[in-house]
């Protein structure tokens, strides 16, 4: 048997090489030939195209995504957790032999093609990789790690623009009325510097960088799943998530969808004549069409309807208990950070401001500052609960939170939504309720701590902010320690042997 293998592990200094050595040893003993590409910290010597072409079977022993996996498209493939390759390499080779046998030998040009059942035409993937939840987390983390620099660059530029240009800078660039002064929209970007100054330029650059958050997130989630073929449908799904106002949660869904569709298309076995144009034409076209259509038709319309419903509901609540309204707005601000629910709450704050109610605006602003601040605090208190890119994002989050740039929390929420989002909602609800209870006001729709001079009862505003930040940070720390799988049991048992026969 002629085998090519890739080994890869999270740190890239130990398991990658142990697995390579184990597989080489076992293959030698069994009389197979094997070439192993170690995707580790010592650099990889890539498998040559000839080696791959000559291989009967591909073995992927990896706990992280294998780079350039599309090279192996169409080959029988066995994917195993890396520890299995170290502990029991002969069993992995047996699995590889079984996968090879399950794929019909390629028919010669003149041989009649038997109508193989669809299942047998696909490359056979035997064995399970890391467990489902672990894999999803890996995909999300890949997307998040590419997104973080955009959050940092865009967020800090926007924060700087508020520091230099004051709270009106956003209105100066986008047009509208701020604090009784009307500004024309900057329609020609070449006039930006003259019309809005250096601060306006910083704001615009930051806003453009921010507009890439969701496309990058969705694109690289799909990239982690399906490698390069996932990138196009993923990025387009992210752009569409922006266009339909679906926020980063829409981007998460779109990215996973795009990766899944690209993978599914990759597994379709096509005749050699078509295979050449698959990667350049067919896969990008078909996957983007399917994913784009789903995003617009199946995701976009429900979101638009839900946004309308939420807005009407909030309006009907106006005039009821102010503290409960503050808490509710807080929950909404922290739910999706720039997504539809957050936007409904923020728009409600703007409408209240236009109607002369500055308290609601203050509640919305403070509740939107809490999430990044709480995560900055949590990463400082418990660095061990966070990945390295998250700890770095945590440092930038201080400035972003202080500047009411709620997006600073997205990397954390996207990587671990079930733990992070509820925790952030708790603290923002506290902040929103406290602002209303203590009657702090804000005439400014953004600017965060930099417009503290305009805030009515600034001390009350700060108290609400600190209280909510503390609550959210505490919740994040607790949530991160709860229910964290201590050991990934992936690969301990094949799925079938987990069934327990119950008599009767």
């Amino acid at each position: 048997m002629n085998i090519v293998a890739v080994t890869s592990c999270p740190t890239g200094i130990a398991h990658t090489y142990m697995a390579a050595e184990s597989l080489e040893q076992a293959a030698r003993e069994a009389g197979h030939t094997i070439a192993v590409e170690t995707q580790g910290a010592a650099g990889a010597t890539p498998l040559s195209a000839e080696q791959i072409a000559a291989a009967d079977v591909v073995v992927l022993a990896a706990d992280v995504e294998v780079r350039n996996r599309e090279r192996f498209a169409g080959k029988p493939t066995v994917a195993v957790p890396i520890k299995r390759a170290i502990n029991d390499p002969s069993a992995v080779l047996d699995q590889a032999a079984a996968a090879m046998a399950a794929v019909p030998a390629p028919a010669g040009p003149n041989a009649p093609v038997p109508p193989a059942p669809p299942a047998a035409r696909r490359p056979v993937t035997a064995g399970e990789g890391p467990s489902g939840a672990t894999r999803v987390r890996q995909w999300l983390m890949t997307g998040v790690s590419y997104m973080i620099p955009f959050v940092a660059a865009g967020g800090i530029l926007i924060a700087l623009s508020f520091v230099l240009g004051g709270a009106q800078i956003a209105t100066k660039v986008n047009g509208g009325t701020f604090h009784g002064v009307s500004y024309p929209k900057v329609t020609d970007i070449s006039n930006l510097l003259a019309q809005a100054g250096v601060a306006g330029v910083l704001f615009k650059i930051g806003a453009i960088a921010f507009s890439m958050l969701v496309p990058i997130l969705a694109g690289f989630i799909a990239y982690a799943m399906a490698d390069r073929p996932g990138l196009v449908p993923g990025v387009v799904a992210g752009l569409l998530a922006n266009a339909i106002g679906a926020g980063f949660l829409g981007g998460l869904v779109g990215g996973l969808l795009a990766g899944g569709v690209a993978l599914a298309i990759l597994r379709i076995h096509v005749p050699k004549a078509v295979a050449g144009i698959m990667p350049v034409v067919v896969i990008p076209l078909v996957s983007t069409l399917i994913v784009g259509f789903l995003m617009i038709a199946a995701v976009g319309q429900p979101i638009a309807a839900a946004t309308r419903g939420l807005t009407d509901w909030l309006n009907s609540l106006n005039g009821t208990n102010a503290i409960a309204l503050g808490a509710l707005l807080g929950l909404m601000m922290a739910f999706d950070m720039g997504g539809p629910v957050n936007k409904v709450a923020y728009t409600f704050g703007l409408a209240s401001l236009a109607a002369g109610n500055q308290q609601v605006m203050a509640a919305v602003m403070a509740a939107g500052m809490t999430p990044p601040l709480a995560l900055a605090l949590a990463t400082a208190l418990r660095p061990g609960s966070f990945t390295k890119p998250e700890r770095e994002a945590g440092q930038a989050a201080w400035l972003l939170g202080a500047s009411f740039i709620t997006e600073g929390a997205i990397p954390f929420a996207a990587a671990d939504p079930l733990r992070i989002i509820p925790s952030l909602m708790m603290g923002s609800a506290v902040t929103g309720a406290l602002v209303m209870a203590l009657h702090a006001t804000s005439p400014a729709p953004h600017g965060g701590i930099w417009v503290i001079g305009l805030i009515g009862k600034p001390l009350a505003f700060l108290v609400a902010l600190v209280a909510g930040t503390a609550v959210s940070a505490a919740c994040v720390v607790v949530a991160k320690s709860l229910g964290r799988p201590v050991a990934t049991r992936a690969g301990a048992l094949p799925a079938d042997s987990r069934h327990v026969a119950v008599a009767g």
Partner: protein
Amino acid sequence: MNTTELITTELVDLDLAAGDRAEATAHLAGLLAGAGRVTDLDGFLADVRAREAQMPTGLEGGIGIPHARSAFVTTPTLAFGRSTEGVDFGAEDGPAHLIFLIAAPEGGGADHMTILASLARRLVHRSFREALLGAADPQAIVDLVDREVVGK
């Protein structure tokens, strides 16, 4: 190519007394810090814990390989502990008797890492493990690693 040894006798503890993997790791990391290979013990331990939390590093055959690439590591280094009663590192088949704490510098280039790669490759060989189990004193461990991994 580098003047610092991968392992020295002060980085070997043939009588590792530790109840669990946190203690074992902390003890070996203490040796690294004592030898100046790690600049911030707590920071390094946090990085090792984070790696261990992703997936336990215990392997069949009584081996534990806690490891991390960390900004607090000055040079690729190995600390070795041998435990008679064993320390649980999450392997299916029982506790680890041979524990290798592998410390890699964060920004280390590829050639820095090749030495650790060849160490990892030796670890899967039964003869290497048995020699480590049977070594009489720390100098024997250092000689073994130098011969088998570094190729001296």
